[in-house]
Structure formats: structure tokens, C-alpha cells
């Protein structure tokens, strides 16, 4: 029998019992739809994680203060990370290229009669360079793929120098919106502003920025803020010793592990960290590198994939068993038809192909319907998962292949059973 006639015959067999075939596909529809939706959730989560940690460079070690929940509050487990810690890291560890430090706070900024309350960042001199390298922010309206220099981030003036950071100079750099609010479109350069009760000279204004990732734009405003040397911020604007965020940049990415060990040694020494009963250090800081994040993410992704595979396997197996059941019923019901076909010259292989193709048509039909249902479920899944669901393009061919395999695997037994019927007994079947 030619492939075309075989397809026609199988299609006719399926269409003879449309409702039954449609109901049989339900298991496959649900299985495939859940695979599509769950892969979309995984894909969305992966994209979100990548967007969040995009800023973490390959040669960067992020050091943060370790905190724990006690009596419902997040509190330090030991000493805070200090500005001095960061300075020591830069000086004492040979593999370190540079150290960026930041502190955050809130202050009132005043110029003439205009005053605004806002958050500020006390930072070291390379903040602009780090932000540019991270790709986390971009200039608003900047053409895509056009290279940027740190100076491009400045609307006017300059950022503070390492020397100004070291000496705690009374200078500041304003965010774009801050400058607009205070100076109403006039140049802010060299003007003196009041930060709380401290005077600072404006040496620069940052260009208008936005988050590179569109989904992050509404979460964070990069323009309604201002920057000071970290030393100035700690000395004049923050009452208590603040916890400093430290980013260490290593000269050579191959020396990350070695540098992490050196940082740990130095901080343990500076924070006088002791060893607990199990022989481990009771560290009060955490270090994160890109490989740590990716490793943790990959581990989570593996667990997720395992869970997904288990779920998909169960639902598809249930769907497949449904198909097998219906095909076995169909073979019994159509025993006489099989006898007639065998009597007029059908080979056993013709019967195998016919019934297996019917099973495959049902499963692939279910697969196609499942893909459509799955795609329509993605927006719902996204709403339930903070917008994190993106159609994984690979999931469509994957679903089709899986549906095809389900049809073959669960259709082969009924098809063989049909083909092995004795033509005489099949013709006599009532």
C-alpha cells in the first residue's frame, strides 16, 4: 500500500470515531500543554536570573555582609564590612586589580529655594566604569550596539577622582532628574549645594539612564539620585558606621579561587573570626562570583528539569495508555474489517502500519492541540509568576517528537495484535 493510501486509510479510521479520538487526545493535550507551560516558566525564570546577575562580571567577587533572621528581623551575624576592609583588600592582596565600594543612604539636597529628599550613593571613583561594564544600565535613547565610554555616561562635568575619594572631598555628582529638579534646566556645574547640613560642589551631572532590561525599568530609577565620594558620605552623612558593599575585581579570572581564599583570610583576621565546634570559620561575610551564581542556577535548573520530566512522563504515559486502550478497543471492534482486509490481500505489515498510524495521528493531533493550549496558558502562567514565563522555542518541536514517540510506543502493541489476527477467525467475528 502506498504511503498516501495508508495515510488516507488511517485518517478515515480515526475520523470514523471523531469524538472518541478527540477524547483520547485529552491526556496528550494536557501533557504537552503542561510541558510547554512549564518550560516557559523555566525559560522565564532563567531569563530573569540572567538579567539580575548580568551585572556580575567574570572577574568580579561580590562581598556582602552575612545576615540572619532573628526574632523576625534581619540582623548581622558578626561585624559589618567597612570602608577600611575594602582599602585593605585593595592594598594587601596582590591579585586584586581594584576594589569598588558603595554605601546607600537618604539625604535632603538643597539649592537655593529648591530642596529634594532622595537616596544617594557613596562610591569609589570607578562606579561609572563598573556600571558600563556590567551592561546593567544604558543611556536613554542610545543606539543599540554602539560602543560606550565612561565619559558618555556624563551629561556634563566629570565624576570624582580616586584622590577626591581618598581625601573625602566635598564634591558631588547629580543624577539627571535631580539636576533638573534643583537647577530647572540651568547648568549645575561648580554650584554649591547643601546635602543635609554639609556643603558640596557639583562637579558633574549624569546623563539620563535607564535599565538595559526593559522588565527592570519600572523597578529602579537611575536618574533621581546623586553620588558622593564614599569617604565623604561616611564622614558627613551617615551617623552610624554603615555596612559597605564591596566588589573586588581580580586581575586574572583564573585566579578567582585563589583571591577568594586570600580575601577570606584577610577578613577573618580583621574581623577576628573564630572557628566553631565543627572546625569551620564563623564567617560574617559572603562572597559571590558569577560561577557561584550560575552553578546554583544550573543546579536549580537541573532539579526543575527533573521535576518537569517526571510530570511530563506521567501525564504523557497516562495519555499513551489512553491511546493504547482505545486502539485495543478499536482492534476488537474492527476485527471483521481486519479479516476483510487480510482476505483481499493485505499484508500483516499493512495492518500494522494502518493501526500504528492511527495511534500516531491521535497522539500527534493531541500534541498539536496541546501546543496551542500550552501557548495560550503562558500569559496566565506569567501572571501567576511575576511576569516570568517565556515560550521556549525548542519546546514546540520537542513536544511534537514526544507526541510522535508516544503514538509509536503505545500504538505498536494494538497494531501487532491486529496484524496477527487469523483472517478466518476475524471474518467469523461477531
Amino acid at each position, binding site marked *: *500500500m502506498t504511503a498516501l493510501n495508508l495515510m488516507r486509510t488511517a485518517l478515515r479510521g480515526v475520523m*470514523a470515531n471523531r469524538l472518541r479520538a478527540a477524547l483520547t487526545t485529552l491526556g496528550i493535550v494536557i501533557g504537552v500543554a503542561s510541558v510547554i507551560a512549564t518550560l516557559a516558566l523555566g525559560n522565564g525564570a532563567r531569563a530573569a536570573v540572567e538579567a539580575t546577575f548580568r551585572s556580575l562580571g567574570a572577574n568580579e567577587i561580590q562581598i556582602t555582609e552575612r545576615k540572619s533572621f532573628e526574632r523576625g528581623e534581619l540582623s548581622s551575624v558578626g561585624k559589618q564590612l567597612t570602608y577600611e576592609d575594602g582599602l585593605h583588600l585593595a592594598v594587601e592582596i596582590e591579585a586584586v586589580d581594584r576594589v569598588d565600594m558603595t554605601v546607600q543612604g537618604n539625604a535632603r539636597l538643597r539649592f537655593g529655594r529648591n530642596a529634594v529628599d532622595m537616596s544617594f550613593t557613596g562610591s569609589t571613583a570607578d562606579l561609572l566604569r563598573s556600571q558600563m561594564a556590567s551592561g546593567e544600565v544604558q543611556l536613554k535613547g542610545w543606539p543599540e550596539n554602539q560602543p560606550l565610554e565612561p565619559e558618555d555616561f556624563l551629561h556634563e562635568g566629570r565624576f570624582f577622582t580616586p584622590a577626591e575619594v581618598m581625601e573625602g572631598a566635598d564634591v558631588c555628582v547629580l543624577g539627571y532628574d535631580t539636576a533638573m529638579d534643583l537647577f530647572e534646566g540651568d547648568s549645575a556645574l561648580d554650584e554649591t549645594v547643601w546635602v543635609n547640613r554639609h556643603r558640596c560642589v557639583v562637579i558633574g551631572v549624569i546623563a539620563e539612564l535607564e535599565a538595559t532590561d526593559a522588565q527592570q525599568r519600572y523597578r529602579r530609577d537611575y536618574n533621581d539620585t546623586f553620588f558622593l565620594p564614599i569617604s565623604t558620605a561616611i564622614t558627613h552623612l551617615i551617623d552610624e558606621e554603615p555596612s559597605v558593599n564591596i566588589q573586588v575585581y581580580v586581575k586574572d579570572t583564573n585566579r578567582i579561587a585563589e583571591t577568594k581564599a586570600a580575601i577570606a583570610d584577610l577578613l577573618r583576621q580583621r574581623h577576628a573570626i573564630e572557628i566553631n565546634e565543627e572546625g569551620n570559620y564563623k564567617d560574617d561575610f559572603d562572597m559571590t562570583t558569577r560561577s557561584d551564581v550560575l552553578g546554583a542556577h544550573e543546579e536549580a535548573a537541573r532539579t526543575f528539569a527533573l521535576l518537569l520530566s517526571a510530570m511530563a512522563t506521567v501525564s504523557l504515559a497516562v495519555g499513551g495508555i489512553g491511546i493504547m486502550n482505545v486502539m485495543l478497543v478499536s482492534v476488537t471492534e474492527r476485527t471483521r474489517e481486519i479479516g476483510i482486509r*487480510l482476505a483481499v*490481500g493485505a499484508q500483516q505489515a499493512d495492518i500494522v502500519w494502518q493501526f500504528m498510524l492511527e495511534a500516531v495521528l491521535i497522539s500527534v493531533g493531541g500534541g498539536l492541540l496541546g501546543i496551542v493550549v500550552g501557548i495560550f496558558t503562558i500569559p496566565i502562567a506569567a501572571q501567576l509568576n511575576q511576569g516570568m514565563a517565556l515560550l521556549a522555542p525548542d519546546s514546540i518541536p520537542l513536544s511534537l517528537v514526544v507526541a510522535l514517540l508516544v503514538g509509536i510506543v503505545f500504538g505498536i502493541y494494538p497494531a501487532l495484535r491486529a496484524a496477527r489476527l487469523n483472517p478466518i477467525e476475524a471474518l467469523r467475528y461477531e
Partner: protein
Amino acid sequence: MNGRPSRPPVQPAGFVPEAGAPLIQAVGLKREYLLGRTRVQALQGVDLTIHAGEFVALMGASGSGKSTLMHLLGCLDEPSAGQYLLEGRDTSKLPPRERAELRSTRLGFVFQNFFLLPDLNAIDNVALPLLYQRGFKSDSIVLRQRAIEALAQVGLAQRAGHRPMELSGGERQRVAIARALITRPALLLADEPTGNLDSATGLELMSMLTELWVSGLTVLLVTHDQNVASFAPRVVYMKDGRIVHEETRQSTRILSNGNVVRAETPPKGCAHDSA
């Protein structure tokens, strides 16, 4: 090359056997099967030769083994012992694949219950055997053409688009005959073809089979009805799985102007000669 005798090839569909040559040779055919724990000897050594162009009726009471013999001769079953040669080819131990090939090229079946596929119309039912014929390039236009020709042969071309449920019993049986004829078989096996028809329709059908025989087709008719058997010039009687008697007549019955009349038996193979 290896000294093994080569098996005669299956004759292609439509091949016309030489008139008077043995088409079927059954030698000591036996068929036994288990019915629960009882061993039933359905055939107990049947010897039968049918020549090309013959019209043979196989008669016997229920349980005489005539249907079992027809299944063996139609390659639907294999004998427990003995030899069955179809066109000189021993088919006794053929694998299912080769028996299926013989059914699709050399044999045509007509059954008592018509055995048409209810979801297919007459034309698709008739075309069915061609779909399974190896080497037949079933171009749908050629396929339809052949099916319409076969339906025209049995006078049903105008009913080609009707499904079995929309046809009368006689029409259904004629569709079944058209299906048997479409492969241009060497032998037509008819198992109680009038069993589900009223007597008038049965007579019409027998007349049609007689005409097909006259036109050169070899026909083997299985029946328990003496009237039906009387259409065949040669009648073989079976009892308890054995051939017990055989009759050959010089005349046969045909339907003429609605009446059954006796006519001289045409000499074997006359139709082939004229063809």
C-alpha cells in the same frame, strides 16, 4: 546454483491460465484443529483437481468440511498435511506474506455475508484489493477507473457512490463480486453467495456467476443448496471431511428472460479461445 529447485513465481494479476491446465491440485489435504480439548479432523485427505475455466460446486451438509477446504484453496489457511498446488506452485507451507500476495493477485472471494466495509462507498470497497497489490501504482484516477469498470461488469456503475447500508442485499453481493473481479483473478471462490439473498436475487446472482464463468473465469462455488449447485456443470460432494462423490453434467442452467433454463455446457476453455 545451490541445487535447490526454484519455486515457480506467483503469476501476475490478470494473467490468464492456459485453458484446461490444472489450476488447482490438492493432494491428500488434511486440516485438523483443536476445539477446546477435542481434536477435530475437518479435512481427512482431500484430493481435488480443478482445471482453468471450470465451474465447480462444492456441496455438502453443514460440517462436511467444504468451507474449510475453500479456506485452504483460497490461501486463507494452511493445511495440517498434504499438498496444495496453485498454478503448479506448492502453497502448503508458504509464509503469510506470500499467501497474502497470492490472495491479492490470483484469488477473488465472495462471501455469504458480503463483507463490505461499511464506512466505504461501493467504489472504495471495490478498489480495496488493488490498494494491497504489490507493484500496483495506485494512482487514484487509475484506481477509480478500474473500480468503475468492475462495478459496470456487475451492472452497478450508477451506484458507485453509495455505501453498503444504502444498497440492497443483491447489490451488496454484486459489489462484493466486483471487488473480487477487480484484480482479474485466476480463481473466484464463492462461499454460499446466495445464502443471504431471496430466491429471485439468488438466481440472478448465480446467473451472473455463470456468465463470468462463460467469459473464462474459473469458479469454485461452495453451497449446501442443490438448486444453486445445479448451475455448475461439475459438482463435488463432501461428507465428514472427505470427497465422497462427483458429478459432471453436459448441460448447465442459465437465466433467460427471467426463467431458468438448461443450456449446453460450453467446452472447457471455450471462452479463453474466443478471448
